[in-house]
């Protein structure tokens, strides 16, 4: 996983609430055994018409937003399924940061595992950033994870909160499994204890 430290880039405004994972990446594109290559289908039905032609009114089909690295949206972003294909598609398109008033839990978890930073900010601040984002190329936002700030084009700094453990992993590009395996002795002893105390629990074999 790539580390996330500081990012300056174009932000795409997506003023929609309840953007579900079927919208981010429809189920028909989940039939892949790879993590890459999904960017072309990101927001497929919003982005293309029935003939596969781009819908010019959709933000990611417009000038500077084709290279957007930040996405700004409304409430409950990423609701629906657990598909990690949603953050994979965002990442493959080039999005490294999503800013919204709140996120669905599983999607929120999944972004961190892929070096994408989800930032929760109040709705009115998201709306201000959305106005900045509408200025496209002339209005890049900076996201500084170490300082926990989003810097607006006018220089105003907006503080955001983030779980300290997740921040540490993201800043250093650390793999969760590697972290957990440092606790392997505790897992071993938990298993021995469970074997003794819950000996009724059968193993599965077919």
């Amino acid at each position: 996983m790539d580390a996330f430290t500081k990012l300056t880039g174009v932000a795409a405004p997506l003023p929609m609430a309840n953007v579900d994972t079927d919208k981010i990446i429809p189920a028909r594109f989940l039939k892949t055994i790879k993590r890459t290559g999904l960017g072309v289908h990101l927001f497929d039905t919003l982005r293309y018409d029935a003939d596969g032609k781009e819908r010019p009114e959709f933000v990611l089909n417009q000038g500077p937003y084709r290279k957007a690295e930040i996405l700004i949206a409304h409430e409950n972003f990423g609701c629906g399924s657990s598909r990690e294909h949603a953050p994979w598609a965002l990442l493959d398109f080039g999005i490294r940061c999503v800013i919204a008033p709140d996120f669905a839990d599983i999607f929120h978890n999944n972004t961190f595992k892929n070096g994408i930073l989800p930032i929760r900010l109040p709705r009115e601040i998201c709306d201000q950033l959305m106005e900045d984002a509408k200025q496209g190329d002339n209005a890049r936002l900076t996201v500084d994870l170490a300082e926990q700030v989003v810097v607006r084009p006018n220089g105003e700094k907006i503080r955001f909160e983030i779980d300290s453990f997740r921040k540490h992993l993201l800043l250093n590009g650390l793999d969760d499994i590697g972290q957990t395996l440092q606790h392997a002795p505790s897992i071993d002893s938990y298993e021995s204890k469970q074997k003794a105390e819950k000996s009724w629990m059968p193993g599965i074999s077919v």
Partner: protein
Amino acid sequence: MAETKPRTLFDKVWDAHVVEQLPDGTCVLYIDRHLVHEVTSPQAFEGLRMAGRKVRRPDATIAVADHNIPTMGRANGIQEEDSRIQVETLERNVAEFGVPYFPILSPEQGIVHIIGPEQGISLPGMTIVCGDSHTSTHGAMGSLAFGIGTSEVEHVLATQTLLQKPAKNMLVRVEGTLGAGCTAKDIVLAIIGKIGTAGGTGHVIEFAGSAIRALDMAGRMTVCNMSIEAGARAGMIAPDETTFEYVRGKPFAPKGEALDRAIAWWRTLPADPGAHYDTVVELDAAAIAPMVTWGTNPEAVVPVTGTVPNPADVADEAKRAQLARMVEYMGLTPGQKMTDLKIDVVFIGSCTNGRIEDIRAAAAVAKGRRVAPGVRAMIVPGSGIVKQLAEAEGIDRILIDAGFEWREPGCSMCLGMNPDKLTPGQRCASTSNRNFEGRQGPGGRTHLVSPAMAAAAAVTGRLADVRELA
């Protein structure tokens, strides 16, 4: 200290699985059961392979293909190449890593959330995960069960744990008796209508109250299944005699003296008196009518006697725009009666409503009636065991004689990854869990209902109040 404070069901199951708590409060949480399917696992096994890691507990893992397998002519193989590659990849992975697997032609095959409880693999007090959001289904057993992404699938395969912080506790209490024609599906749709699609975010919901206690295990699974549609991390129901009776005799459940010991522990799991819930919601079961969604998220729901809302009545601009988009996408007119909507397709199945009790409910309505002309009605049993049971009871004949298609088990038209899809503009009465735009096929229009309501729609050709068909 933790021993003296009254705890909720969630608190108890959580505490019993904490391997270690890190300084910032993140816990290494032990996972008792890991269910694996073909769509969200290939990249996880690939990750293990690249890191030279093994599956830590194959005996706590079960794999099955369900999401994109065909529900007809399966013995001839999978025709769609990308689906076939995914299933073959799963078969290679389970062989290489020694993971138990129910092959697609075996009767044990089925939707992962149907077969967990059915096989006695999912048991009370366990932590259960799967790379699928509807893992919340298993919470009906009194377990803590939740969906995870593929990176976490890999994490559990490698370590049998997850890094998690505890959720908040929400209690949804449903008291009273359901009216005629009303089911567990109507309860959960009414709950989501009340608290909204993000109402449960950050919480684990415990469903309680006399109306929940009165449900059989199938109904409890339907309720917990849709917890995620309210944004909750998981849904749980305290284990009781109904639960223990259900578990008894299931293939992988403990037996005899071992079962007695298990039940003795399971009896300690219900919440202590005075346990704290961060949020409490109450519903009156008697006030719940058969429900039907009109829009493109499960919160957009009305009683079947209701009408399509008018976006113009909504003050908030963003909400008004969202509602207007729903009305347009669904091809509706504000004020239109739900029962005036003609239906093209009926889908009865899914992890929400693909159990034998659901198929019996559909057959009870279909018996002696015919699927309306021009309607395609499909029944997709949730597992091979459900299918066999229905055939032994003869309810497949009732449904086939009424004009329903009787298909092989899988996720099918719940998410349209296999050939079972809506075409653009088709309107479907569906017993599944999500009515998102394009969920059942691009341009498809989904109305979520109970199995009895779906059967009523099939035989009348429109959304119908099942109470009028009695």
